[in-house]
């Protein structure tokens, strides 16, 4: 059968109503590009979201969509995938939806390794409720609900995902459309729960939160694009790199202290042990560059595949395969 190629237009519908300049616009664009490049038919693609600004996204994707309730998108997506494992499911949540009210579903979907793509749009703020701090806001963050600064520490989404035994974690910046598209495609190709953290700006309530990563120039200085099998180099002219230093990482300059490319760590997203990957994911400015790209990508049995396999095996083993045969497995007696 000839493979049908889909165009980005095949995945576009409606007129997004996010604020001008919101990171959701460019993210939507990247997602639709990824969908077109993956060319999974729109009718076999499902976008499931919770509640929040970014959770409006299913209305703008010309696929199957379900705008559910606050925090529960991962649970709804889990049921949909188990009902029909042929579907490609994109679950969209913001930092509040995914990590606060939906934190339990977030970690358990990852632990089960259900084959869905969890897109976590992290703008470190509650936008739709007009400006309260979120579970990813930094300690001391001043917002309408924390006028004197928050007195709690934020989650690092990567740390949570890894703690829940996450097998795939990627990070990208919403306005960086090519890299975001690439991360989304890698997430879709990964079998199991893929978590993609998308760093995005909120123009209205948290403008500039990712100023350090907002432009190409800033990303060159402040971020590192990790690529499988490639040395961990960054900087405007790839002049910097990462090396191991005891149990830690350190930033080095090539050419200084006789350091050459050979001394630089090579990125291995497929390494089962996540120690180094977690170190990379937790790097923060100014001491370190922020890690972008696919940080972890490890194969493991998925829940939906394991369930299908179990059904197959038990079907083979048991002698009853319909309701009547089930009835007859019981102790019965006859009244004549």
């Amino acid at each position, binding site marked *: 059968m000839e493979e049908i190629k889909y165009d980005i237009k095949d995945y576009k519908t409606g007129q997004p109503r996010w604020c001008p300049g919101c990171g959701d616009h460019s993210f939507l664009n990247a997602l639709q590009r990824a969908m077109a490049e993956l060319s999974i038919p729109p009718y076999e693609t499902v976008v499931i979201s919770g509640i929040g600004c970014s959770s409006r996204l299913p209305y703008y994707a010309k696929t199957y969509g379900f705008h559910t309730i606050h925090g529960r998108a991962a*649970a709804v997506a889990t049921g949909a995938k188990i009902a029909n494992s042929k579907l490609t499911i994109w679950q969209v949540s913001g930092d509040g939806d995914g990590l606060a009210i939906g934190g339990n579903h977030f970690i358990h979907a990852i632990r089960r390794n259900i084959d869905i793509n969890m897109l976590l749009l992290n703008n470190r703020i509650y936008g739709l409720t007009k400006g309260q701090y979120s579970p990813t806001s930094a300690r001391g963050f001043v917002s309408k609900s924390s006028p004197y600064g928050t007195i709690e520490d934020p989650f690092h989404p990567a740390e949570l995902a890894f703690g829940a035994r996450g097998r795939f974690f990627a990070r990208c910046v919403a306005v960086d459309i090519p890299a975001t598209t690439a991360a989304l495609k890698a997430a879709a190709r990964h079998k199991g729960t893929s978590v993609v953290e998308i760093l995005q700006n909120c123009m209205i309530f948290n403008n500039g939160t990712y100023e350090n990563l907002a432009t190409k120039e800033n990303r060159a200085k402040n971020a590192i694009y990790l690529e499988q099998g490639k040395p961990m180099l960054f900087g405007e002219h790839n002049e910097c790199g990462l090396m191991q230093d005891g149990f830690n990482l350190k930033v080095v300059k090539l050419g200084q202290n006789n350091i050459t490319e050979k001394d630089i760590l090579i990125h291995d997203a497929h390494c089962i042990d996540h120690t180094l990957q977690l170190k990379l994911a937790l790097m923060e400015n100014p001491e370190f560059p922020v890690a972008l790209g696919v940080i972890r990508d490890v194969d493991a049995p998925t829940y939906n595949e394991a369930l299908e396999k179990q059904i197959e095996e038990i079907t083979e083993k048991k002698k009853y395969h319909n309701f009547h045969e089930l009835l007859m497995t019981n102790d019965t007696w006859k009244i004549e």
Partner: protein
Amino acid sequence: MSKEEFTIKEIEQVVVRFSGDSGDGMQLAGNIFSTISATVGNNICTLPDFPADIRAPQGTLSGVSGFQIHVGSEQIYTSGDLCNVLIAMNPAALKTQIKYCDPKGIVIVDSNSFKDSDLIKAEYATMNPIEELGIKQEVLQVAITSMCKESLKDSGLDNKSIIRCKNMFALGLVCWMFGRNLDAAENMLNEKFAKKPQIAAANIKVLNDGYHFGANTHAIASSYKIECTDKKEKGLYMDITGNKATSYGLIAASEKSGLELYLGSYPITPATDILHELAKHKSLGIKTVQCEDEIAGCASAIGAAFAGDFAVTTTSGPGLCLKTEAINLAVMAELPLLIIDVQRGGPSTGLPTKTEQADLLQALYGRSGESPVPVIAATSPTNCFDAAYMAAKIAIEHMTPVILLSDTFIANGSSAWKLPDLKNYPPINPPFVKPEMAATWTPYQRDVKTDSRYWAIPGTKGFEHCIGGLEKDSKTGVISSNPENHQKMVLLRQTKIDKIADKLPELKVIGDQDADLLIVGWGGTYGHLRLVMEMMKKKGKKVALAHFQYINPLPKNTAEVLGRFKKIVVAEQNLGQFAGYLRMKIHGINIKQFNRINGQPFLISELTDTFNQILEEK
């Protein structure tokens, strides 16, 4: 007593109650006795009554577990008020259970377990329990533990395993008392301990020894025979609990609808057995997911429904609270979803192992907004099958969440059930979109007859669409906050549910059609109310029963039926939730209430007294 004097008396019915420490195996002994009684054609009804703790301290009052079985030659409606035979394996059981024993009954105790230390653990003030409790019944002191030890001294089993078999000695003795053949019991034990043949053999040996002990010593003056006089329908029968019947109803609905069964659930007493039952049947393609919480149980089921499965979530009161918001999503998205609430004593953690009917208003109204949901209540252990099947049919064909109410009493209780033939059950037709609709279809386009929308599941080409919890335009299906549209959609969702009444069976009145008193009940109290009605009729009282299975919508003739009777009493295990609901639905109706909310099934005597009193009132 010589053998010549020994008699076998024929009786119509008997109530036996096994009680002991929660680790004494009383549930197993009771289960076997009820099954073998059913196997010979008697009617049965059982009531397991166990503590919420898995293993409360041994020998203490809080650790007593009981299992009551009502066996009869004719139709049995309840598990019986008071037992004729009480087996008390220790002093704690005797102390807590003697109140359930008929003054003319027989009490069998394990005399080995009445040492001073046992009495102290059970908080006796004196060392003479019979006198202290003022027991008038005939007490049979049997050295059960020591005979059990003697029986198995050459078995090679350790002491602990030997003592575990003592429940079988008591069961053997009871089997002798009621002339029960042990074959069926032996088969059940062999099956239960299939992987431990040594344990099976030990249990069977003690069972036989208990039986022979009764026969050889003529432990009581006469043994009893319960004839099978009730002309039951011909066919194959099995003993089934309400929770198992519910599970089977779901499996049947899945087969008839051609939809795969998805269960999203979180363990909670007393609903968990449905999860256990369905989890076993992977060879029927059933998908059960033990979720991270109650919300995920419901939300994942909604996801499965969106993707085209017959989706179910099971719970009890506290879990229903948690699922509330998700149920509203299913109301708004108009997706088929079956929520099963096996009610227990509430509020909060309440009485996890006791029965109650107090979630009715929560099921009907416990959601934000105008959120109509069909509510159906199962009326007996075996009716759980039909109720689950019909609840599934309504959910699927009308694209709506449906709440099925069961309760601890019928969920754990069992009775004999004629194996159903699915050919006799109505078809279930999922309202899928058809390819020719694609050009003009919108997500909230409705079937004119039922007002329900169509089901377009992902994977179907040409029907890509987005639904969700936000209000949608009735025509286009896009988000709308238009005032007129919202009013229209609220009404449409209500009308859709109201229209289900067109398909429901009419409310029937059992008993005197011109009764002086109409007894009204709903759900799991059917057996008790039916028995009371029959008993009062036999005494010449003009009474009738109208028992509701369909609560929302109500059967169409409800107002007309209730309007025919001068005196109506609504009996329920809450403070009057159904009575209040009827008053709201039927203008000007005058009804009396009987409400008991003590975690136990109704008592026949109490119902009879109350209803007689109402009859006498001017």
